[in-house]
């Protein structure tokens, strides 16, 4: 059973293979994403994050989830030498970490309810669990960053088991991720960075941070134990980490 709903400013898809699935579990997980959106969306005036940016809440009164997220953001900032930075012009915006963290929590909710074979995909970031309908590892295609979205052309196919896969990138209409070390400089050396990690929380925060490093992003991923990456530069040349091979599915080319 599969559903797609628009939340957190993007389409979120959940597919559950287990035979015991029914409609109710989808509501449970989507309600959680709604809760996340209401707390962390900088586009909602009433969200906790907007209240914080308007100085309307004291730090001691931040919610438990907010404190947890901010702690993770600070940890990630240190681990990436400042390339991950939630300080933006409008205040703080932790969405680069919240997305992966929320998807991962959604997956944990599914597991807690006894589901083993599923995926959650939100805006191109994916947490997989178990096997697909063919009882094989989930097959994920990396989108060609140079093509329009409706074409959905795939340039690499990977097969993963119990992993998180996050892709940071730009798209045809221009670069929307900036280098936190130099706010005036758009990051356009690379256009796509896919990170495979033990879960989507880890993959997403490092994909977000690394993307801001330009061409050296893939070297950062190479240096991370337990992570693999596939980077596409503005000339259409892909570079991959030394352990990425094991995930590649050889395909017939179009």
């Amino acid at each position: 059973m599969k559903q797609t709903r628009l939340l957190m400013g993007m389409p979120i898809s959940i597919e559950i293979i287990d035979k015991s699935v029914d409609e109710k579990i989808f509501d449970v997980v989507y309600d959680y994403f709604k809760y996340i959106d209401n707390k962390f969306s900088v586009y909602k005036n009433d969200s906790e994050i907007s209240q914080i940016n308007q100085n309307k809440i004291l730090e001691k009164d931040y919610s438990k989830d907010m404190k947890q997220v901010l702690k993770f953001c600070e940890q990630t900032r240190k681990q990436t030498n400042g390339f991950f930075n939630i300080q933006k012009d409008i205040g703080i915006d932790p969405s680069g970490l919240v997305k992966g963290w929320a998807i991962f929590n959604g997956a944990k909710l599914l597991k807690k309810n006894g589901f083993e074979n599923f995926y959650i995909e939100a805006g191109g970031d994916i947490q997989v669990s178990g096997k697909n309908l063919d009882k094989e590892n989930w097959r994920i295609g990396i989108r060609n960053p140079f093509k329009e979205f409706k074409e959905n052309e795939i340039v690499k196919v990977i097969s993963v088991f119990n992993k998180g896969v996050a892709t940071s990138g730009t798209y045809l209409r221009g670069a929307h991720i900036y280098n936190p070390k130099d706010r005036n400089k758009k990051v356009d050396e690379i256009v796509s960075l896919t990170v495979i990690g033990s879960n989507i929380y880890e993959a997403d925060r490092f994909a977000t941070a690394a993307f801001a490093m330009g061409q050296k992003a893939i070297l950062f991923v190479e240096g991370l134990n337990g992570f693999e990456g596939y980077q596409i530069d503005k000339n259409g040349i892909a570079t991959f980490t030394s352990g990425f091979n094991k995930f590649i599915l050889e395909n017939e080319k179009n």
Partner: protein
Amino acid sequence: MKKFLVSAFVFITFVIYSLHQRVASNVISPTVSQTPNSGSSSTTTTQPSTSTTGFKDGQYTGDIVDAYYGNVQVKAIISGGKITDIQFLDYPRDRQQSNYINSQATPMLRTEAIQAQSANVDIISGATATSQAFIQSLGFALAKAK
């Protein structure tokens, strides 16, 4: 580790070679405060000597070299005409897990030109324009609400 040592060895060999050339031709490296034909180094406390190997005693700083992760700069210490020590003045360490990076060689990562693949996949991963479009659309909506 091995590859890094090889690179460092190659670099250090180059440094030594260039020092050797300079000593042989009586040209003084700009990083050593030593006047031509003086036969002594102002930075050493040992007896000045010009050995048959061609190395003059003293401390010699090599040029800064871009090692991709960061800069490498070494200092060679010559005593009794022989290299007695080589020190790193700078090495790539401005990175997460810098200890890990420094114990590894600069990796040669595989590259390829991207090519369209069969679309037989369960899920697609890619940067999304939807979030950005959401923001833009919201902006337009709010403008109308003014």
